[in-house]
């Protein structure tokens, strides 16, 4: 009786795992499945999960097509890439130093500062969007990739600082005390001891920061009106005509936007989870 119950429980376990996998993966698989068709195929009712005539035509179209302003996938990926990279660099360097200060030093306005960070980390960005857009429009800075860059940096700064505080709190202080006795300055300690220890966490936080900008639609769509300055999420909308939506091309481009992120997420999986749970725990 016992072995039977055990096998039955095992089978149920594997079936549940399979079910969870299907639930989690299905939209991702559907995306890739659509991307391997042509839009004509989709409209001619080829809507099984497995495409009848798999083709890479949609990828070719998505990469090669240009919209009315002469910009296309190449321009948009370039915009997305360097805006997000520099935004990530700014957010990480500023928040790592601030996170370190909050974790290690005691100073006057520490608690209010920490509270402001905890609060801004949770506020809806839509609240700041209205005055923010007006300020930028007044200064004539819409359609500026530089402004978009700093915006992404600022938007991610609180979350990043919050994660860094959680991470630095778990680094034992003894190492630093030894260095201090040896006459190392505070910046020296930060650069020579703390940063080398934090490489995995920094890469994980950088990834989350990068993704914040990489997938952003809200800020980019309100600020970037010129197609030559679009980022990839805005570029996706260019395949939507009023009467005709090029679904295969949208899905192909979506796949190209998603795959690098998914690979990085899985590659950094352990650090990401440790980091986020460190942040959640405080």
């Amino acid at each position, binding site marked *: 009786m016992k072995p039977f119950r055990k096998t039955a429980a095992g089978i149920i*376990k*594997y079936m549940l795992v399979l079910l*969870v996998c299907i*639930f*989690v993966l*299905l*939209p*991702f698989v*559907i995306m890739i499945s*659509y991307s391997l068709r042509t839009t004509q195929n*989709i*409209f001619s*009712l080829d809507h*099984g*999960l497995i495409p009848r005539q798999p083709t890479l035509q949609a990828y070719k179209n998505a990469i090669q097509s240009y919209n009315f302003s002469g910009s296309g996938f190449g321009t948009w990926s370039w915009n997305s890439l360097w805006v997000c990279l520099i935004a990530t660099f*700014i957010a990480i360097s500023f*928040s790592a*130093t*601030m996170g370190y200060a909050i974790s290690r*030093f*005691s100073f006057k306005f520490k608690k209010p500062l920490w509270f*402001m960070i*905890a*609060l*801004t980390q*949770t*506020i*809806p960005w*839509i*609240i*700041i969007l*209205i005055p923010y857009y007006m*300020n930028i429009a007044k200064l004539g800075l819409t359609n500026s990739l530089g402004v978009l860059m700093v*915006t992404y940096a*600022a938007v991610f700064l*609180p979350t990043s*600082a919050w994660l860094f505080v*959680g991470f630095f*709190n*778990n680094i*034992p*202080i003894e190492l630093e005390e030894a260095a201090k006795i040896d006459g190392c300055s*505070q910046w020296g300690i930060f650069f020579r001891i703390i940063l080398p220890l934090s490489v995995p966490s920094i890469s994980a936080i950088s990834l989350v920061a990068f993704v914040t900008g990489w*997938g952003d*639609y*809200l800020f980019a769509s*309100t600020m970037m009106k010129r197609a030559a300055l679009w980022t990839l999420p805005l570029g996706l909308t260019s395949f939507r005509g009023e009467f005709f939506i090029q*679904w295969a091309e*949208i*899905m192909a481009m*979506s796949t190209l936007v*998603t795959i690098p*992120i998914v690979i*990085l*997420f*899985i590659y950094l*999986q352990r650090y990401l*989870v*440790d980091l986020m749970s460190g942040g959640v*725990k405080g």
Partner: protein
Amino acid sequence: MHPALYRGTILNKPSPLKSNRESTTILQFILPAVIVLSIFVFIPIFQTILMSFQQWSLSASSKSHPFAGFKNYIAVFGLSQFKTMGYATISYTVLCVFGKMILGLFVALLLNKKFVGRSVVRGLMLIPWAMPSVVVCNVFLIALDPNYGILSGMITKLPFVKGPFQVFNGTTSAFAAVTIIGIWKNFPFISLMLLAALGGIPQDYYDAASIDGAGRFRQFLYITWPQIKPIWNTLLTLQVLWTVKEFELIYLITKGGPDSATGVIGIDIYLNAFRFYKVGMACAEGVLLLVFCLIFSIIYFQNQNKEGAL
């Protein structure tokens, strides 16, 4: 040693040299971030609060914005739409958070068991989290399309579904779809956080309990639950805060329709400000949302304080 103890020793120690040089160093560490945050976050927040008490006329050319007292707030509450918006926001937040937390816990407990390919499955769990919202919305829009959708094609084959499957046309079905998509996108995050907590529970506890004759359910109730409860509470608070402000995911799928059934507060603010140019009202709504988030953040902050984060 528990990390909190380290922190205690660090922070309660009176700093040995509190010279000018030291405070300059501290300033160097925090100032860049504080400046960026002030310009791009703090000042706009105060502007929103200010603007919510001003009158904004429809013509964009008029430069003066006279003080309007609580007029904007009264307008928000007086609006017939307010009821729909409030209902949509509250039910979306409650259902979505509830779904995410329960499914997240269930999946975490499942993936905490030993089985072949466990680490692969854990890796796959990151995919919904990693997919950008814009992409998710497009995928579901086509997958649930009544004519060309893979998902709707599958669903119409089910025995109890009749007629074409037009999910985004009905108010209830559109709302349900958006909620389920929200759950799908975010439950893996909760599962992974809970898994990290579950991994920290020593196996001895369970061995001892099963020797004492405690069944699965009692083991969960008396061992697992107390151990993951602090993280559960924090996750719950964070999820409420993150869900109540949902914008992109819903806006890109339904734009708040049909019949404002999915018009949560985030969408309402966006439409009021950028479509209907009711700037004052949009800001008033924003402030209401901000106050809600503030209250919740304080709860969260106090919880963290209690656990000795600072």
